């Protein structure tokens, strides 16, 4: 695949998605996104650009008023969350993403709820990616550190063996060192074959690791290119810091 050319076999695709929480206030105003098998896609943009809303719309958590969502060529617009999981789409919300009063292992069990027979294989895979979760498997999730909680949330989503994983700001609220870890394990789990759509506030770090990036602005696509191209594009800085920041 070359540079900014869109991948040919999309596993998940948003076409002209218009979505809102309240009638009359569209957050997404015709957004497009494609993620191919095994691809790592980053979604960045300034505050209020609609990044989180886009992944929520992909996962059916926000009603899509217009446009459509496609999974391997089949339309899944408006499908419910549990059906999304069954269709092998995983979603990790930004906050409140673990069951605090349940143990680590019970959280993981919830991840395999639809297919309990996957539990053993799943936990083995999770143990490889996040050994610390197995060490602490009998502790309550709310006793974990912020970084570990984020790992658990992702691990739980991985228990259902998603073909594509949607991550909403996985590095938010973590220290710089822990953020490094997040970007490292996102790359690792992607390298093992899971396609990833990652929304990030930390634009540069995200662009460093992703194959392609989407830059959103006010609910529409502003720029799309490889992570590397966007990383060095002065237009991206301008989008965050306004017209005054225009590179000479």
């Amino acid at each position, binding site marked *: 695949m070359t540079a900014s050319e869109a991948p040919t076999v999309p596993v998940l695709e948003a076409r002209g998605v218009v979505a809102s929480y309240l009638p009359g206030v569209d957050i997404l105003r015709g957004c497009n996104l494609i993620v191919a098998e*095994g691809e790592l896609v980053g979604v960045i943009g300034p*505050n209020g650009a609609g990044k989180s809303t886009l992944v929520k719309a992909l996962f059916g958590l926000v009603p899509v008023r217009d446009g459509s969502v496609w999974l391997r060529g089949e339309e899944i617009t408006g499908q419910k969350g549990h059906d999304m999981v069954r269709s092998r789409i995983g979603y990790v919300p930004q906050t409140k993403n673990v069951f605090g009063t349940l143990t680590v292992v019970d959280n993981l069990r919830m991840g395999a709820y639809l297919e309990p027979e996957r539990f053993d294989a799943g936990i083995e895979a999770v143990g490889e990616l996040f050994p610390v979760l197995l060490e602490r498997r009998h502790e309550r999730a709310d006793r974990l550190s912020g970084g570990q909680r984020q790992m658990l949330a992702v691990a739980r989503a991985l228990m259902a063996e998603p073909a594509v994983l949607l991550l909403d700001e996985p590095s938010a609220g973590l220290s710089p060192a822990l953020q490094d870890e997040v970007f490292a394990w996102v790359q690792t789990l992607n390298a093992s074959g899971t396609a990833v759509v990652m929304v*990030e506030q930390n634009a540069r770090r995200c*662009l*460093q690791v992703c194959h392609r990036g989407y830059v959103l602005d006010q609910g529409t696509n502003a720029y799309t290119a490889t992570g590397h191209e966007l990383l060095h594009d002065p237009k991206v800085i301008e989008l*965050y810091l*306004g017209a*005054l920041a225009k590179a000479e």
Partner: protein
Amino acid sequence: MSADATTNGAILQARGMRRAFGGLVAVDVESFSVMRGSITALIGPNGAGKTTLFNVLTGFERADHGEWTFDDRDVSGWPAYRIARAGMVRTFQIPKALARMSVLENMKLAAQTQRGEGFFPALLRRLWCDEEARIEARGVELLEWVGLAKQRDDYAGTLSGGQRKLLELGRALMTNPRLVMLDEPTAGVNPALTEQLLDRIRSVRDEGATVLFVEHDMDVVGSISDRVICMAQGSVIAEGTAAEVVADPQVIDAYLGERHGEAAMPTSEGPT
């Protein structure tokens, strides 16, 4: 007036401000000052500590330590009502209008030291009647000024998000404050109303008050601020004119994330 406000000295000066929530240091500002007669924007990425700093300065939250003066008076640790009475009034990011009162009643409520509030003066109608009329006149005048005259008798709850922001601004001005602090005045306001709001903010300054506002929209910041202060992770990282601040590499790093670890994590060209 221009960025030349520095000649007038600082109306608000803070030193060694610190506020932590458990292990999270939300504000750790060595020094912070707002020049008299300026429009100063406080910017910074999410979680930079802007609103917490606002809350601490206006007495809505306590500081772990720090000293601050307003108009050369030490107001450190004063409760919110005293700070407001001293002439430093703030608005909230989410407007706090009283939905079941009319727009005008909301305005009147913001006036302070009303005699009718006391027990004995309340018995003497003559004492507060004139005052009530004066407050009402001021309320009506300000409503006209912010463009809500037509809505004066509507419930505040029926106003749009943008109109509520205008009501917040109007209420803040009821007491003729010398410093108005606005927390994201344009958030959720449609472009036409934003223009009106910005225009009003400019005239607040032109009439002699000082404005400090938190803002995310950098084009708004660039268009009306005399000075810009940028916070990140609790501290002030840059200060100057809007053009200076947005060109500061530290500010760009704060908004877009630092690039460290670049060599360690090469970007691959596509999935394998």
